[in-house]
């Protein structure tokens, strides 16, 4: 297959970026999207055309959350329920022009080319995305039975890979889906209850402080999430938040 690639190039955070166009021919439809970029880079280096295009990736099997490209106007491209690394060229047509950009969101500044800084997500988790169980001194794993349905729902919420597609998809750059997935996971489990009230308030505050926008209920995040994290998590987080505010005895 042959493609024309329009790729965002930007030397560093300060530089002004621009689109560059490259042609690529003879790509197998079974090739993955990132392998297609590998081939492009090989050509760019071998033929001395330009510096290779830099993009984040690691596991290449849809689980680490490191990859994330904005392809033809969609986070992770045209296929549903997959990350960029799981996208295959058979999803495109021979001769297509493909536009490739980094995530565009104020809290995710571009580092170089297609690489952005997502450390804001780590900072939100550090505010309360955990159960304070330090090593040792915990009860037997079967001491507290958890209804299967709750455990399954918690698992679904916990499947979030932290790639940031939800933020990139949202016109307000809101991180509600990401934050609510973590809040939900712990809200559904008895172990998460003792810290639940504090957790939701602190994580939401941090999210606001870091410059993520508000949720205006468009749910592009849910539509573009490669792990199908549900918007019901946002509803659950809102309930947790209100309930926390209503019953809070401190402050």
């Amino acid at each position, binding site marked *: 297959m042959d493609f024309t690639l329009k790729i965002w190039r930007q030397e560093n955070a300060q530089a002004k970026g621009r689109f560059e166009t490259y042609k690529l021919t003879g790509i197998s439809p079974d090739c993955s999207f990132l392998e297609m970029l590998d081939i492009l880079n090989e050509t760019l280096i071998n033929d001395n055309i330009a510096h290779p295009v830099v993009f984040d990736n690691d596991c290449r099997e849809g689980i*680490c959350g490191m990859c994330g490209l904005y392809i033809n106007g969609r986070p992770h491209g045209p296929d549903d329920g997959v990350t960029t690394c799981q996208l295959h060229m058979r999803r495109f047509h021979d001769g297509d022009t493909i536009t490739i950009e980094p995530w565009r969101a104020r809290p995710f500044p571009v580092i170089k080319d297609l690489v952005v800084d997502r450390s804001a997500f780590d900072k939100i988790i550090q505010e309360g995305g955990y*159960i304070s169980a330090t090593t040792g001194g915990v009860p037997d794993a079967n001491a507290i039975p958890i209804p299967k349905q709750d455990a399954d729902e918690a698992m679904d919420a916990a499947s979030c890979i932290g790639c940031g597609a939800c933020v990139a998809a949202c016109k307000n750059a809101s991180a509600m889906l990401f934050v609510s997935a973590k809040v939900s996971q712990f809200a559904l489990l008895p172990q998460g209850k003792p810290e639940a009230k504090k957790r939701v308030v602190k994580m939401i505050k941090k999210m606001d402080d870091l410059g993520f926008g508000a949720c205006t209920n468009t749910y592009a995040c849910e539509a573009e999430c490669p792990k199908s994290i549900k918007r019901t998590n946002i509803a659950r987080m809102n309930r947790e938040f209100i309930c926390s505010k209503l019953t809070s005895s401190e402050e």
Partner: protein
Amino acid sequence: MATLNSKIPEGPLSEKWTKYKASQKLVNPANKRKLDVIVVGTGLAGASAAASLGALGFNVKVFCIQDSPRRAHSIAAQGGINAAKNYPNDGDSVGRLFYDTIKGGDYRAREANVYRLAEVSNSIIDQCVAQGVPFAREYSGYLANRSFGGAQVSRTFYAKGQTGQQLLLGAYSALSQQIKAGTVKMYARKEMENLVIIDGKARGIITRDVKTGEIERWFGHCVILATGGYGNVYYLSTNAMNSNGSAAWQCYKKGAFFANPCYVQIHPTCIPVHGDYQSKLTLMSESLRNDGRIWVPKKKEDAEAIRKGEKTANDIDEQDRDYYLERRYPAFGNLVPRDIASRAAKERCDAGYGVGTGKAVFLDFKDAINRLGKDKVEERYGNLFQMYQKITDDNPYETPMMIYPAVHYTMGGLWVDYELQTTIDGLFAAGECNFSDHGANRLGASALMQGLADGYFVLPYTVQNYLSAEIYNAPIPTTHEAFDLAEKEVNEKIAKILSVKGNRTVDSFQKELGHIMWEKVGMGRNKEGLTEAIPMIKALKEEFWKNVRVDEANECMNPELEKALRFADHVELAELLAMDALQREESCGGHFREEHQTEEGEAKRDDENFMFVGAWQYKGEGSEPELHKEDLNYEFIKVQQRNYK
């Protein structure tokens, strides 16, 4: 010359660890704050160690190469984590988990370490549940278990097909808590490039910031390496793109012995190779072997017709299918250990019964779907089936999956004693980057167990024991000449790579190396192939330093340079791996020497001459490394021929 002292505590096996903990030296809280601990890597071992040591009150600095600690490749582990809880009441116990692990490792692991691993396994599950890890549960609300290769009990805990992800996110959350508390400082996108040794002790590391190229110096009273395995030496493997053996190799070159490099696990159930542009191989969890049946056609004509596309799997009648694992190993059937399942697949394909490209066998869920219903199968394996379909464009609910073995895990690694300390004082190694617990073959669902055991439950004791003698030593300023020297080495290596300005990309070298390794140092090894491989690897190394092309500068994000720095180490590691494979004139676990097999084609160990850990010592560029032997004494287990029939 140092002889290897494994420092195994005296006494009966079941009391060793308890005794160690009771007599181990402690550090008081005020002193803990004054002691700096460096942890390299944030996978299960690194994140859990950093979180636990931080919670104890030590001053921890932790480094990872990705943009966030949550990306480490532990996240990709699918199937599960073993523990001897015996919740199903099917006869499991610490003793049985210990025995299965030793036997699975083909009697090439150290008894005391493995026993401790089995002993702490239950605490790991407790810890993870307390952290909110959503393990699978039964309708009763209690935890569910499944079985895995090499075991006859159900002892594997799991979270769908994403167990590694959930455990890593658990450890990451514990780490995040400590970062917030200020006991742990997190440094992302920094790659370790050298180890600093002062007066014989590990005292720090040199890193390269992958965003800016900046070379930085870090002091620690001790250094913990948790940097994973070296499977990417083979280029195509199930490892992540950034997984590498570089940090361990730097430590080897600074004096840490490298043990059993030839023990490489080839995982039987991966999606087969389909093109030369491929960058990695994808694993299909071993848990699939619980319900999937592996087969190839009985008749060569059928296999050929399938390869040509004239027939499909569904055209082959039941009596014409050869369920070769069930045929050869009736007791364990499709659940034989990984090394055995891998070799059996290669044997059938080499004999002309392979399907797909000829290098693939079927993994069939037809019977499971008939027995359990499609819904149940989907509940158990849905995400794996989806992953398979996305990659291959085939629907595994309708046609059997095609699978083939691929490099997955390295049992070899830095030699460590009972305290997980390497031959360099103050340098510890945890998780896959040490050699400690899996012998010559790792059982499924034991990697997660080992990573977390090392990080949560072993290092917090043993590191503290080491640091108790360090309370009088103030931090050494990073202006010390040892730091100058270590940094200079890194700068020179980078400058040298950039100055070559040759004609070949790093990937082309790594691909070529991978090809040599897979063909000659892969699943079946022999003297001839290994003796050919070594000079080929040497020649490739030479060519690399003359002909590699990395043209962008150091001072920016430059993945080509990162890859080149790693390759420079991988090509040397590959040579040691081949030498070790040549030295080990026996077949055991994942190491199969074709000269040493039984009439039925099973691995033939040589306990008389090879019941030892082979630990290599670096002797400088251009000199042969020296092999040291740690004899394995089985006091508690009766060594037998491994039998899964």
